[in-house]
Each structure stands twice: as C-alpha cells, then as structure tokens.
C-alpha cells in the first residue's frame, strides 16, 4: 500500500516538475518528494524483510501485454534490492535539495530524476518479462536524459550516445533471453518461466544472453566502455545513483534470471563469471588509479566493485551446481553484501565529489588539494568512504571482501579441476584489485583533500550547505555501522537468499554474535565489533601513554622538506606523479601507457612538458573497429541511393525473376 503510493508519487512529481519547472521553489519540492517516496519504499522493503520474509505479495494490473497483463511481486530479493536502491536514492534526493540548483540547467534534471527512481524500483517489482523490460528501458531512458542534462558539451553528447546504444544492445540481448524462457507459447510471466523447462542449448543461450544484457548494464569488461563516459557526465547526485544503484539493478537482473527463473545453471558458467569478474575487477581499478577526473575515477572503481560482486555470484553458481548449498549461500551472501556496501560508499563518494564541485567547480585532481582544512565535514565523510572502498577494517567494505575471500578459499573443495586451478588465480586477481583500490583512493584522497591547494578555486573553497553535509555524514555513519556489526546484516541476507539456494544458512553459525564464522569456527572468523572496541582502547591507550610520558606542546612551522623550503604548491606530488610508478609497472602492457617529455632547449624559458598517453585496448579493439566496419558497409550500401531509374527497374526485374525461379524450383 505504502509502496504503491510511493510508486504513484514519482511520475506525479516529474509531471509537477514539467509544469512548474520555472518556479524557483519547484526543485526543492521535487527533491523533497523524491526523498519522501524513496524513504517510503525503503521502509516498505525493510518491513517486508523484517516482518514476513517468506511472503511474496503479488499484484496484477489490467495493462501491459493484453493476454498477460502487468504482474508485480515483492519477494525477498526484490525487497532487499529495494532497500539498496532507495537507501542511496533517499541520500541522492536529500543531496539534490541543495545541489539541484547548482547544475547548469536544473529544468533538464528535475523531470527525469523521479522517473529514474521510478524505473529502477519498477524493475525490482516487475513479475513479467514485458513489465521488467519496460521498467528497465525506462530506467535507461531517464538516465540518458539525465546524462544529457548538460547537453551543450560535446563529450556529454558522445557519452549519452554510447550509453543509449549500449542500453539498446542490452535490451536486445534480454529480449531473446526472456523469449527463450517464455517459449513460443507467449506466457511472459515469471511464474510461467520458473516452471518452463529449458532445452540444454536454450539454457546455454539464456545464460549467455543475460550475461551480455545485464552485464552490459552492470559494466562487466568488455561491455564497460560506456560506463566511465556516462556516469561522470550526469550531475553528481545522478552519477551517484547510476554508479551506486543502477549497476545493482543490473546485478538484480542477473540474480533473478540465474538463480530464480533459470534454475539449473552449469558450474562452468559460474567459473566463467568468476574469471570475467576477476578481470573486470583488476582492469577497472587499473583504469581508475590512472584517472585525473575524480568522477571518472569513481566510475571506473564502480567497474571494479561490480567485478568483485560478480565473482561472488559466479562462485555461488558453481557451488550450487556442485551440490554445496551452504557454500553457495555463503558466496551469494558475500556478493550481495558487497553490492549493498558498494551502493552506500559509492554514493557517498560521488556525493562528496558533488560537494567538491559545489565548493570549487573543479573535479580534476590536479586542480584540487588541501580541501580537508577548508571542508572538514566533507573531508571526514569522504575519508570514511575512501577507507571503506579500500576494504579497510572495521568498515563495511572489508567485511564483504573478507566474506568473498573466505568463500573463494573454499573453492578448491569443488570436484572440478578447472575450479581447483582457477579459483586461486581469481583469488590473486581479487587480492590485486583490493590492493590497487587502496592505492587508488590514497591517491584520490591525498591529492584532493590533503596537501596544499593547487588552484585558486581550491584555495577559496568553503564547506557546503548543511543538507549536503548531513547526507554525507549519514552515509559515512552507515559505512561504519555495516562494518562494525556485520553479523546482523549477514544473518538477514542469508534469510533473504534462502529461497534461491534452498537452505537457510546463518553465516554466524558457530560462534554466534558477534563472531562472523561462515564455514565454522575452525575455518577462521572475524568480528568487526570486537576489533572496533579493542582498536579504540589501544588508540586511547597509545595517546594516554604518549601524553603521560612526554610533553604535549605542539608548534606550527613551515614544512621541513629535507631543508629546502619550497612554497610553490606546484612542487607537490600531483595525481599523475603519484600514479607514475603504478603506471609503469601495471599499465605499460595492457594500456600501452607511454610518456613523452619535451625538454625546452637550454636557455629557453618555456616549461618542460610531460604528457602521458593511455590507450583503452577494449575501446580501440572492440568499439572503434566495430564502428569502422559499420561505416564501411554503410558506404557500400549508400551507393544504392544514386542509381538511375533503369537500374532500379533492373533490380525489380531481377527480384521478380529470382522469386519466379524459386517457385519453379520449389514446385513439386
């Protein structure tokens, strides 16, 4: 009821935005409305999870495909993702209240923002293929319009173009996927698909297609190319949703099909997904660590985190197919937990970037610096986010990665040799990704918030309005909370996925609260709660000891810097110089990273220039060459536009004779 009301509100809001967009106060109204709606949906999801997890209320409305009608259903999975989506949605809406007026053309944002939320939530509750895809495309369309909010910049238009085309690709993969699951009968309800038995080849195609379709939306390599273009192009609070939430909706699609509708997916697919996930994670974070634009950096790190989550899903599939439901549950819980965490800290980081943009108008690392002293709240919240995404305990990011590692370590127990040898490799990839993520965010935070300002804009930065600060702080608090009491989350998650796997598997089985001991106490355990408490005690003890034993005086002075005082902020390490060792070591081969240094002639006063060239092999190899192919064919075909009437008649004649021959041949 509440949920339905919230759903109804969103389109109304966008209509309102269309009508009253000129009024100054309309933005606040729209975003407040979105905040309210998403809070309602959030509450709805939580109540469903807490109240009656087993139940799955359904609703059938008389529209959609005539003989199918529109089916909606709220089961555990939907409710969980509804929580994930609307948590960030609420944050983004709240942030938007203050931020919405900073975007260049607010009227191009407010009508689509509610529709975007509408679409994402719609995907979650849809219970037939048609409604699912309508909502899915609705989501893409609304976000496309939002990407075009600042449409006067050519790169945004290119981003939107690539984005919508890839969205189309995704849909055209999902269409046949659902077509196969529904069969020629034309009953497109998910209920029918659950019972419909698939032939082996059909099953194979379904998995492949859903990986392509949902994977392109989630940003799996090599279908990720649109993501770092599109996500940063939108206004920051929208980027937060696209990066933090829309990718999760894509994961929802994957899980819905692979675990619920399809039923029996072979372990090979699990293995394949793990490899794809691993590669995605490493490539994503490698791209990220080399970026200068903060939003692009965050977008690439989204690619990484999606990879991590997909490793979890793949592992779960492999376990499930190999008759290890308990381990499958563990892996799935790990994946979902990571999805939840990522949605939170990625929203936090994107909104933080929005705050930086509001304060400085800059999102290029090399123009920032020293913001922590000027924006203490934003700085602190961003620090929490950065630590969380770097998988540092006791924050939430670590818990999910720990769980994924734990389930990975069980991988070799599978009978298949491919898994025995593959899992360690994937483990290595995951570990590499985690370490690089830390490097990436040390760089991002260190360059943006620490040190000395690198530009006037950064020097003049002031803290953002209270609403923004509050949003950031709340999200940061959530990062800590979900990290410090993981058991609560894992237990509810295992309840959520019980129907999908078939076993209810409390991850804190052996030792009980607050110990997280997934595979049994002997297998290794973790307790964020305990670590927080003890860590705090030791921190306090250290401070007390030091202050007890030593002097407390503290003097401010110029930096020593090995003696030579250099007050030009340009002498600091920049993002590029920080990334240089990593670039040389990791990026030389995959991205063909090349550096060119132009030294001025002796006596020439011009500055020396150092430029870096990166090539995205996927973009070059796949997208560009495909584009070239299409162009070449188009050129050939285009000749047909310029023939003489006689030749057109000739074409007609040829067609006629050909068809006559066909008939002549096919006649008995």
């Amino acid at each position, binding site marked *: 009821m509440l949920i339905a009301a919230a759903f109804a509100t969103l389109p109304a809001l966008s209509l309102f935005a269309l009508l009253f967009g000129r009024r100054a106060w309309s933005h606040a109204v729209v975003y407040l409305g979105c905040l309210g709606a998403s809070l309602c949906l959030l509450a709805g999801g939580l109540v469903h999870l807490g109240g009656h997890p087993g139940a799955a209320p359904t609703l059938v409305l008389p529209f959609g495909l005539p003989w199918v009608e529109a089916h909606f259903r709220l089961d555990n999975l939907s409710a969980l993702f509804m929580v994930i989506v609307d948590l960030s949605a609420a944050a983004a809406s709240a942030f938007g209240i203050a931020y919405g007026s900073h975007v260049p053309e607010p009227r191009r944002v407010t009508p689509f923002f509610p529709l975007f939320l509408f679409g994402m939530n719609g995907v979650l509750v849809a219970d037939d293929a048609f409604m699912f895809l309508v909502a899915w495309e609705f989501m893409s369309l609304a976000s496309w319009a939002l990407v075009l909010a600042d449409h006067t910049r050519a790169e945004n238009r290119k981003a939107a173009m690539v984005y919508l085309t890839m969205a189309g690709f995704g849909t055209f993969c999902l269409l046949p996927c659902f077509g196969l699951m529904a069969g020629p009968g034309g009953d497109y309800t998910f209920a029918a698909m659950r019972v419909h038995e698939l032939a082996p080849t059909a099953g194979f195609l379904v998995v492949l297609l859903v990986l392509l379709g949902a994977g392109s939306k989630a940003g799996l390599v090599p279908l990720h190319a649109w993501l770092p273009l599109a996500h940063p192009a939108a206004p920051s609070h929208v980027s937060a949703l696209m990066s933090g939430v829309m990718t999760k909706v894509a994961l929802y699609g994957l899980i819905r099909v692979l675990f619920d509708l399809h039923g029996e997916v072979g372990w090979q697919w699990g293995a394949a997904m793990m490899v794809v996930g691993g590669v995605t994670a490493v490539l994503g974070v490698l791209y990220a660590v080399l970026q200068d634009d903060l939003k692009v950096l965050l977008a690439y790190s989204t690619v990484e985190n999606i990879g991590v989550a997909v490793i979890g899903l793949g592992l779960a599939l492999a376990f499930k197919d190999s008759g290890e439901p308990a381990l499958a549950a563990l892996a799935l819980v790990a994946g979902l937990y990571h999805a939840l965490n990522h949605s939170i800290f990625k929203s936090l980081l994107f909104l933080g970037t929005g705050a930086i943009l509001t304060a400085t108008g800059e999102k290029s690392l090399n123009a920032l610096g020293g913001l922590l002293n000027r924006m203490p709240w934003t700085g602190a919240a961003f620090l929490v986010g950065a630590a969380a995404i770097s998988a540092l305990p006791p924050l939430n990011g670590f818990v999910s990665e720990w769980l994924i590692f734990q389930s990975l370590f069980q991988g070799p127990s599978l009978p298949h040799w491919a898994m025995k040898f593959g899992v360690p490799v994937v483990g290595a990839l995951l570990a590499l990704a985690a370490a690089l993520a830390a490097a990436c965010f040390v760089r991002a935070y260190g360059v943006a918030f620490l040190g000395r300002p690198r530009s006037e804009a950064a020097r003049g930065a002031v803290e953002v309005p209270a609403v923004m600060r509050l949003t950031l702080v709340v999200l940061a608090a959530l990062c800590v909370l979900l990290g410090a009491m993981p058991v609560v989350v894992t237990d509810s998650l295992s309840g959520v996925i019980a129907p999908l796997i078939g076993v209810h598997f409390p991850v804190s089985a052996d030792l009980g609260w607050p110990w997280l001991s997934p595979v049994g106490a002997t297998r290794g355990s973790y307790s964020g709660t305990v670590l927080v408490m003890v860590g705090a005690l030791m921190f306090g003890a250290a401070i007390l000891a030091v202050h007890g034993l030593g002097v407390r005086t503290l003097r401010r002075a110029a930096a020593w810097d090995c003696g030579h005082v250099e007050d030009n902020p340009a002498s600091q390490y920049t993002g590029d110089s920080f990334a240089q060792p990593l670039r040389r070591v990791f990026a030389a081969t995959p991205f063909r990273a090349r550096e060119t240094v132009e030294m001025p002639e002796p006596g020439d006063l011009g500055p020396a220039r150092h430029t870096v060239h990166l090539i995205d092999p996927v973009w070059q190899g796949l997208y560009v060459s495909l584009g070239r192919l299409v162009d070449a064919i188009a050129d050939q075909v285009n000749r047909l536009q310029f023939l*003489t009437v006689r030749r057109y008649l000739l074409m007609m004649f040829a067609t006629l004779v050909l068809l006559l021959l066909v008939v002549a041949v096919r006649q008995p």
Partner: protein
Amino acid sequence: MEQHQALSYDVAHLIGATVLMAGFGLLYQRRLFAVLNTFAFQALALAAAAAWQARIQDAPHLYATAAIALVFKALAVPFALHWLVEKLGIHRTVETALSIGWTMIVGVALVALSILLVLPVTAGAAALTRESLALAMSVVLLGLLMMITRHNAVTQVVGFMALENGLLLAAVSAKGMPLVVEISIAFSVLVAMTLFGIFFFRIRERFDTLDLHYLETYRGDRH
C-alpha cells in the same frame, strides 16, 4: 462442335503468339519509328485477341476492351509518340544497354521460364487459358526486359505499354473475368499520364534529352 472448340482455341493461341512475336520484334528493332510501328502492330493483335475472346466467350464487354486497344493503343498512342519524336527532335536510333543479340537470348530464356512455370500449374484450368497465360506472362516479362535494356524514355514508355498488353492479354483470356474494361481504361490513363509527363518535362525544359541518363543528374541526398 468439338471441331469448332478446337478451332477457336487454335485461333486464340495464334493471336496470342502474334502478340508475343511482336514483343520480340520490339526488342529487335533499332530505329525508333520501327519500334513504334511494331508496337502498333502488337496493339492491333491484342485488339484482335480481345475481339476473338469476346466472340468465343460471348462476353460482349470484351468488345469494348478491343475497341479501346484498337483506337487508343494501335492508333492514338503511336501517332502521339510519332508527333513527340518529331517535335522534340529525339534521336531516331535506340541506345541499348544490352546488345540486341543478348536481349533476344534473355527474352527466349524468359519465355522458357514462363512456360515452365505456367504449363504444369494450369493443368486444372480450362485449356483455353493455359497457353494464353504462358504467352501473356512472356509478353509481360519481355516488356519489362525492354524497359531495362533501353535508355530512351520513349522506348521505356513503349516497353511499359507492351508489358501492359501482356496483362490485358491475360485478363481477356481469363474466362469471365469482370472489370477488364475498367482495368484497360485505368491503364490507358496511366499511359496518357506518361506521355503527358514526357511532353510536360520537355516544354518545361527540365532536361534537354529524354535519355534517362540526364534525367537523374540530381538523384537526391548526395553528401
């Protein structure tokens, strides 16, 4: 009676064959006026066919068709074209896209194809229609062939009308088919429009020859 039936069939087929021969004649001619004369002859043969069918099917309305064919096609149109060619000073020789010889060979192949297609399938139909249908189809294809192997606009019009002769031949020999008259009228309108079109283009001086190369100097949307 039997005798008479057989005779009537043979006559029908004979006339039909004449129309077809005229079709080949059209392909064969190199000079414009000769083409026009051959076409007039074909139209004449068609009129005869229509009249004969009107007699043996005792369907009087076919006489109307015959009359239209005779007056409009065999007389009016050829004269109009003569006048056009004279007035517009069009080259008297026909430029061919495909050499006459090859055109004839293709033509024969088309006739073979249509016979191959029609004869086996019309086993059920009245013997009357079988051959005439095959003949008609050949004439249609030959007309089309003429349209695509001749550059000159006049010859294209002639080709189109030859095609249409084939259609009418089929229509009249289809026993008891209604609306034949209306259809032939409709076609006459088409042809009239074509002639008007050519004349119109000419007096508007849209292009200095009727050679269709020059008609499509523009051909739309070049970039």
